[in-house]
């Protein structure tokens, strides 16, 4: 019988013990003594969130295909267990072997959102690994970070030995080989890091010095070690079908956020929305072939027994084989009690037809993401969705039996005016009016329900808005009230609903997103004073963070409300994410003039990603 790291007494006194016992369907079991490399794969959030992350399952599967590597999982203990582990001094352990993390060779932490940064310190702390890379010894695991937030790793620089910039499929094999080789030769931690630094995509923060100007901006960022290169180019998979996918995803016992098979159909995006980091850093768009996806869909449903399959991509409607894929899924699985869910689809005739086949129209709602309330502002952000197409899509849907609509917006976008804000309410109203105009009373399924939500805009690195000024908390809330009040004036007010996100959290996210190395001290100070699970609004304690900024002598505004000059050196400029700074500048200027840039399939805008020699940049160009 498997031995657990926690006693029955502990497991029976905390919430959801299944988070900590492992043993799930498709969990990989190996003898740790028979492998050369032990890798602890960490998602720094609670089990249900962590296990819903696709990237983690892809790497888990890929690493474990190697006989000499055992990849296990570790997640943030929830606050109840966190307390117990500190009190009883129980070291953090991996789910598979239940062994302490400190015994591993690697601790790999995926960085999916900024608000998990204090949870990273929790993981290190509970594992008994020194928080600062410079304090670690030969006994400690190599702490490696990856994922979207690694595109600006600087606020976390001192906590990591190594960052992997880009997609994990390409370099980990070589990294493991180097690690084994180094150990065989009796090499030290330092020797390994120097060799690792020579691999593409690898960034060893200790090998670089950052100097600052008097005003706090970055003056220079230079390697201090001959093994480190001045520019780190992101890694990416060019032939998507050559990458292995997950044939046997781990199936949690408890209900997790993604309780379904997730099929990644492509990476990257052709759209070029100017606020979107993913759409920029994952360029160019690269598709999987239909055959590849069919094959994995069948395998994964069979190996998990899930009752649902979902497609994953930034904009599924842009997948060239979408129709073929969706028809395959319906023909193959619909009769077998498998639900098919199709997120991130643009609403058009095809989509509505498919949706009416795969979901219960009465119970589902239509989703549009106009992101901005006016056409002018949508042009600024390059969101190619017009009011006309939204109303047309809504009208068609209403005729098809839908009567619930969700609209997603952002507030605080560059150049936003009161008119743009009020446009949110006006657009929601027009959608409601479309329902009453289009359907005679006899055909209506009750009242229409339009829910508009707005999040607050955070400028992100490697987007054309990386220079932009971000709003203060007060400005955000003021804008939300303007929208809310406009809603009250609407004729169909009773059919409309408006809600908005938390502003405190957004401001902090803004600091961490575009932060530099100095911000690390704030993260650490906040953690030491009890900040944890900041992405969970019920645990987010803004005062702790504000106090930490004061203690560390840093200003929130420097990172958020300051509009950056075009010639400013950014903390993340040493990374080459494909999109060039020249392209981003051009886009920032186009944004200022509300000029739209066509998508990659309409016309190439020479963003820089063509140098990777593949994907959409070379479609129809053989």
């Amino acid at each position, binding site marked *: 019988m*498997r031995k657990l790291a926690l006693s*029955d007494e502990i497991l*029976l006194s905390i919430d959801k013990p*299944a988070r900590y016992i492992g043993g799930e369907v498709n969990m990989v079991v190996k003898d740790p003594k028979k492998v050369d490399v032990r890798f602890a794969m960490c998602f720094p959030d609670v089990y249900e969130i962590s296990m819903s992350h696709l990237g983690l399952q892809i790497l888990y599967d890929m690493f474990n295909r190697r006989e000499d590597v055992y990849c296990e999982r570790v997640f943030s203990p929830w606050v109840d267990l966190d307390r117990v582990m500190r009190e009883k001094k129980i070291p953090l352990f991996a789910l598979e072997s239940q062994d302490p993390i400190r015994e591993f060779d690697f601790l790999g932490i995926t960085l999916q959102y900024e608000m998990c940064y204090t949870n990273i310190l929790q993981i290190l702390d509970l594992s008994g690994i020194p928080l600062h890379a410079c304090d670690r010894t030969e006994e400690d695991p190599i702490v490696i970070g990856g994922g979207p937030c690694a595109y600006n790793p600087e606020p976390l620089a001192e906590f990591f030995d190594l960052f992997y910039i880009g997609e994990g499929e390409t370099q980990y094999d070589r990294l493991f080989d180097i690690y084994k080789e180094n150990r065989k030769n009796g090499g030290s931690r330092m020797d390994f890091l120097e060799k690792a630094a020579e691999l593409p995509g690898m960034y060893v923060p200790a090998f670089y010095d950052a100097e600052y100007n008097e005003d706090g901006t970055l003056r220079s960022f230079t390697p201090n070690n001959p093994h480190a290169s001045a520019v780190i180019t992101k890694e990416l998979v060019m032939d998507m079908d050559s990458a292995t996918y997950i044939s046997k995803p781990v199936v949690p016992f408890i*209900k997790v956020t993604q309780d379904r098979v997730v099929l990644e159909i492509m990476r990257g995006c052709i759209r070029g929305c100017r606020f979107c980091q993913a759409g920029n850093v994952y360029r160019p768009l690269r598709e999987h072939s239909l055959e590849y996806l069919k094959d994995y869909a069948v395998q994964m449903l*069979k190996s998990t*027994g899930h009752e649902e399959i979902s497609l994953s991509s930034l904009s599924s409607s842009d997948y060239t084989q979408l129709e073929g894929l969706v028809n395959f899924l319906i023909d193959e699985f619909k009769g077998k*009690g498998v639900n098919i869910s199709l997120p991130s689809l643009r609403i058009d005739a095809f989509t509505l037809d498919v949706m009416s086949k795969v979901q219960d129209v009465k*119970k589902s709602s239509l989703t549009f993401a106009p992101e901005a309330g006016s056409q002018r502002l949508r042009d600024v952000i390059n969101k190619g969705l017009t009011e006309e197409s939204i109303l047309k899509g809504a009208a068609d849907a209403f005729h098809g039996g839908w009567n619930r609509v969700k609209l997603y917006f952002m507030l605080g976008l560059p150049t936003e005016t009161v008119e743009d804000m009020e446009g949110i309410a006006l657009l929601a109203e027009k959608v409601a009016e479309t329902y009453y105009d289009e359907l005679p009373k006899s055909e209506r399924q009750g009242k229409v329900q339009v829910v508009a939500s707005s999040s607050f805009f955070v400028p992100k690195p490697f987007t054309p808005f990386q220079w932009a000024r971000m709003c203060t908390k007060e400005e955000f809330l003021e804008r939300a009230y303007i929208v809310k009040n406009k809603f009250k004036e609407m004729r169909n007010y009773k059919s409309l609903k408006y809600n908005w996100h938390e502003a405190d959290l957004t401001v902090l996210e803004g600091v961490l997103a575009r932060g530099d190395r100095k911000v690390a001290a704030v993260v650490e100070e906040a953690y030491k004073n009890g900040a944890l699970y900041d992405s969970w609004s019920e645990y987010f304690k803004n005062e702790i963070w504000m106090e930490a900024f004061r203690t560390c002598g840093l200003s929130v505004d420097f990172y958020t409300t300051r509009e950056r000059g075009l010639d400013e050196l950014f903390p993340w400029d040493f990374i080459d994410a494909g999109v060039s700074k020249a392209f981003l500048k051009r886009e920032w200027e186009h944004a200022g003039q509300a000029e739209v840039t066509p998508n990659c399939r309409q016309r190439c805008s020479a963003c820089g990603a063509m140098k990777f020699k593949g994907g959409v940049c070379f479609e129809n160009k053989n």
Partner: protein
Amino acid sequence: MKIRIKFAKQGTMKFIGHLDVMRYFQKAMRRADVDIRYSEGFSPHQIMSFAAPLGVGLTSSGEYMDIEVHSTGSSAEMVKRLNEVMVEGFQVLDWRRLGDEAGNAMSLVAAADYTAAFRKGYEPEDLEGFLAGLEAFYERPSIPIVKKTKKGEKEMDLKPLVYACRVTGGDEPSIFLRLSTGSSSNVKPELFLETYCREAGFPFSPFTFEIQREEIYAPGFIPLNDLGEIIE
């Protein structure tokens, strides 16, 4: 056609709650390609019902569920197929065909067997005294308890609901209990043991005993799988 499945839930699986056990088996049916029947409607679900939920923390060597299938292989084949997709801790023990008119497992449940052993570190100093006292306690003509209900407190007699209580095993003794189970009068083994501990002055905590359910019975102490027939 109706099928009754018997399974064991052992080891670390005792931390998986009842609803998650149901989800686990729904997925297991798909992995094993069981030709299970689905309900009608837009989001069809498998026809599946469990005999008696088992509390978190308890193991079992005799759990039951009923399903409906369109077709089936032999009992041995189906048991094998399901066990090929089980995780460590879950084991399918039996697959039997029920008559069309058979009542479902849940409505039939009348009694269940349990064994309780002391968890390491929780053995009473006077183990012999504990066990001797337990048998005497069980011999009493009545065991009145006060049960908390939604409407307040209610006095009741445990005695007629406890069908057997005896000490088994030598060096590491355990307590065998046969208790009334089911919707009408359900006695949890913890309740009986706690009542004894309290009255006899032994310490009791939710962790004192490791409890395992051994079998579930229909009226007349017929194990639930005996109501079905083996498919050759």
